[in-house]
């Protein structure tokens, strides 16, 4: 049974001041007192109001893409806990708020339920295991950190899980820039159904090709622009 992992690491980083529709997926209209566009997940974000943003808790959660539901995710946390073994490298920091473990092929065992070194997944590969485990948003909100880092794991067998998430397919392209050697003047492409993993995959290809050498001479090239688009199944 193959489980899929989706990690959302988002911040309140998108604000448009001049242009409307072209700049963000959800624009707040100060005149009508709500977001001008419906949440892309519609009533899954709120049973009663598709225009709500992160369940009216913007200081606790963020959702630039308008696709996550913190309450649903949090409610699901701990409902099922399992042990998963998979491939890929995990790095970053965060707190997983329920029980269980995730073991990676790199030998790192991530214990859930304590503050653990987990977070942004780097590299590809599916997490394989049994059962369904949901982990809610990871991170802490402090007065010094208005942009809460939200890291949410959805792990589910291929025949279950939130349909909105299952339908997502990403194609990510990393493009180097700078004083790059000739072989770096190309695009590094990864495809997958997990945004963070796919993005990291394209960036990793670029780095592996020796195209990320900030500060080094004679090249000061960086894998500095990744673009991810969703594609239909």
């Amino acid at each position, binding site marked *: 049974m193959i489980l899929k992992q989706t990690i959302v690491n988002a911040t309140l980083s998108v604000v448009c001041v001049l242009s409307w529709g*072209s700049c963000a997926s959800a624009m707040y209209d100060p005149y009508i007192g709500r977001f001008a566009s419906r949440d892309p997940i519609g009533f899954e974000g709120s049973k009663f109001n598709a225009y709500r943003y992160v369940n009216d808790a913007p200081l606790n959660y963020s959702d630039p893409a308008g696709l996550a539901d913190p309450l649903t995710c949090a409610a699901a946390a701990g409902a099922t806990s399992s042990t998963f073994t998979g491939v890929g490298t995990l790095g970053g920091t965060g707190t997983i708020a329920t029980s269980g473990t995730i073991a990676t092929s790199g030998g790192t065992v991530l214990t859930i339920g304590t503050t653990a070194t987990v977070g942004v997944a780097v590299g590809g590969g599916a997490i394989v295991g049994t059962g369904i485990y949901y982990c809610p948003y990871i991170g802490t909100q402090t007065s010094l950190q208005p942009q809460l880092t939200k890291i949410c794991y959805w792990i589910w067998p291929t025949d279950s899980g939130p349909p909105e998430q299952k339908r997502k397919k990403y194609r990510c392209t990393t493009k*180097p820039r700078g004083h790059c050697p000739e072989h770096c003047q190309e695009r590094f492409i990864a495809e997958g159904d997990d*945004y963070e993993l796919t993005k990291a995959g394209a960036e990793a290809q670029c780095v592996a090709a020796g195209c990320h050498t900030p500060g080094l001479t004679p090249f000061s090239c960086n894998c500095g*622009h990744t673009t991810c688009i969703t594609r239909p199944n």
Partner: protein
Amino acid sequence: MSDWKILKLGSKFQIESVPLEFFDPDFYIDSDTLSTYEFLVKCGMVLTVSRVDKDGFPWVEFDRELDDGSIEKHSLFINHGGISLIANQL
């Protein structure tokens, strides 16, 4: 205009102009990246530094909605001029 080196985690800024170094003939830049910068300048989008990498460089992430309604998600490395700092506190 501010230098990118003043950017910290959480800094908010705008890109006022396409960085001049992008037009250096020895500087390689993909046409899509250049187009993205032109979009950011035109839109005046306020960007927030969402992470600082191990080399100390700031990164931003933002979404761009295309004409067909689809969303492009961008991750951008900032190490150039042409920025205007708005706020530098977390």
